[in-house]
């Protein structure tokens, strides 16, 4: 019995389908409990819109997670880049300039993070801890006590034209192709399985880590644009919980916290939507927001236990 259970847990398709199936069941359950109000198209659209910023930033972050590394400066980077991009928009009154500034600043910031890690031979996690503080201080220095307000007509028009959705879909397709259908994605996963082995095979870790951070930086830049559109204002509290939300989304979406072969780009959107569906659905059935956190925590722990067991026999640094 125990062996059968272990076999099921280690099955590649089980780990791949667990999170999407859970999400589907959750959606069905909430639809039943709310008499169909949850599955109302308007509500489903709201749920999707709520998940888009986290899904976009987390989709880029999958490239870093796949290498077995963790970047905890994504929230601070998004907040800083949103600040820069919003200022660029207000100065130029041009959407294109806002996009360009966000993409360039996003890719540059995360590229610097990767370079610092590889050049100084310091683990990615430690560098990102420093970067998180540094980027946050920079944003506070730029903003001070002020709030950047973006005209409502501008953000509303972009929202109504579904710009955030198109940005996300474009980035998702780009990432799926790059991660699942090119040698680049395979090499990142290989580094995640065993970086020493990958280096010995001829894959230069520093080079691929740099590229992974650049892709994640593009995600951060796009996430910053979407944050501007959704929030309509930028303060020092903007994107305060984004980092944790992204990490949670990736893991809840079925991707292994260890990276490697069980890394999937779709994990980000599945995880982000799962978190949003839980919040929305539980509130709709009348759960108090104070109890909601506890229920959410219990469900997250169950999902983590089910999906995060490292497969036996997988080659790793520990052997």
């Amino acid at each position, binding site marked *: 019995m125990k062996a059968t259970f272990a076999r099921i847990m280690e099955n590649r398709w089980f780990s791949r389908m667990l999170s999407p199936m859970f999400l589907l069941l959750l959606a069905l359950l909430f639809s039943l409990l709310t008499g169909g109000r949850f599955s109302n198209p308007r509500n489903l659209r709201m749920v999707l819109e709520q998940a888009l910023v986290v899904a976009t930033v987390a989709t880029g972050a999958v490239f870093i997670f796949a290498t077995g590394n963790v970047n905890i400066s994504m929230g601070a980077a998004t907040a800083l880049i949103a600040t820069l991009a919003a200022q660029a928009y207000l100065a130029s009154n041009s959407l294109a300039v806002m996009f360009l500034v966000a993409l360039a600043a996003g890719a540059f910031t995360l590229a610097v993070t990767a370079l610092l890690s590889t050049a100084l031979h310091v683990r990615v996690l430690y560098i990102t801890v420093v970067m998180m503080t540094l980027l946050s201080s920079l944003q506070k220095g730029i903003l001070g006590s002020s709030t950047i*307000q973006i005209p*409502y007509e501008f953000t509303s028009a972009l929202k109504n034209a579904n710009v955030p959705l198109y940005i996300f879909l474009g980035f998702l397709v780009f990432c799926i192709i790059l991660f699942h259908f090119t040698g680049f994605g395979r090499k990142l996963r290989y580094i995640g399985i065993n970086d020493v082995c990958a280096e010995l095979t001829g894959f230069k870790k520093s080079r691929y880590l740099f590229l992974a951070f650049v892709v994640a930086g593009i995600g951060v830049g796009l996430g910053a644009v979407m944050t501007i559109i959704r*929030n309509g204002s930028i*303060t020092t509290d903007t994107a305060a919980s984004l980092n944790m939300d992204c990490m949670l989304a990736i893991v809840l979406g079925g991707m292994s916290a260890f990276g490697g072969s069980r890394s999937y780009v779709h994990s980000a959107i599945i995880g982000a939507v799962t978190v949003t569906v839980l919040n929305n659905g539980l509130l709709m059935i009348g759960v108090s927001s*104070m109890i909601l956190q506890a229920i959410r925590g219990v469900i997250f722990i169950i999902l983590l236990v089910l999906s995060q067991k490292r497969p036996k026999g997988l080659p790793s640094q520990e052997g």
Partner: protein
Amino acid sequence: MKARKIVSLVLALVMLLAIAVPAGAEGFRKVKVAYATNATDETFVGRKKGLEELVGPTLNMEFMYSEALSDAGALTTFIENAFASGCEGVFVDLANAMDQGAAVANDLGMWYVGVSSADSAVNYDLPYYVSVVGASAQGYGTSYATAIESVLSDGEEHSILILSGAAAYGATSFIEGTAGSLRALQEIYGLTYTRDINELATSSTSVDAENDKGVKITVVPGMGPDLTNTVSPMLQSGEYDVVVGTTTIYGSLSVAVDEVEKATGKNIFFISRDVLSDTIGNAFHTNDSTGHPVMDAVVTQATFETVSGMILLRNAIDGYADNMRADGRCSRVPGSAPLVVVSAEQFDILSAEDIPFAFCTAEDILALTGPDATWEAIDAFGASLTTEAVIEKFNK
């Protein structure tokens, strides 16, 4: 004959139903309203209790509360989820995203009231933006001036430490609290500052408010737990005998003040912003090591804004939005200035068990609802809730 019997039966049934299933408190239809908060602290718990026990039953309203929200993104998500849960209105206590929240609510067709000590800056003409409530910055200034005048008008010269909270970050209630304190000291000592009062109040570093009478006045920015580390050494110098907090400082500084009083044998006057809790009651009733009350004056956190906000929402939901808005834009309802409590006796009267939340009775609330109610009437009622008026009304 048979038809008459059926009609009688139907009429009897309708009457029975009318008795058995009332439309709600005083005939109000049951509505659900969302409450977005920036903190789940003691103030919020008190407001929640007031809503559940007084406003909800009186106006037949059900409330849905948020977690502690920090930015416009989290507020947007909460408003959208509240709409999905059937809320028809939303009350937002998150000043840095107040006007953005109004736009989100407007898109969803939800009536909206924000809390701020300043008026709306943008989006004020959106049709679902009902009002901005909350004691005005000037109200805070006046209340602090009253507190300082009542504590320091003893003819003695004092050295004063004013903690300006988030004034350096542009928070208007803190700026006015600090400026009001400085103006009161100007009045008491007849002094003239060498720098502009507003400049002193918004300083982002500790600054001495130099003046022609040589009275020692220092303005210190900052709030939260870090305040203890900044202020304790200043108190330990023994230079100051008055501490004025434009934020809640009792929890973070009472121990430090007590230690300095014991060490120097000198009384330190303590003026703070806070709620009328048991802790503050004990501070008024307990004497420190020098034989003086631990707490000398409290500028209370405003509570009427919660009641006025819900009355404005109830009226808007019921179809009287035009009366709740001002000339095609959201109204500004500052209501009452924060009350000032300067003695244990006043504290006991204002915090008695039978005192209704925000000093409003169910009758007061009902008088401000319906087709004849206006935002001006709600504002005027709030303005009538002065410390003296409330004490007179409830002191039995």
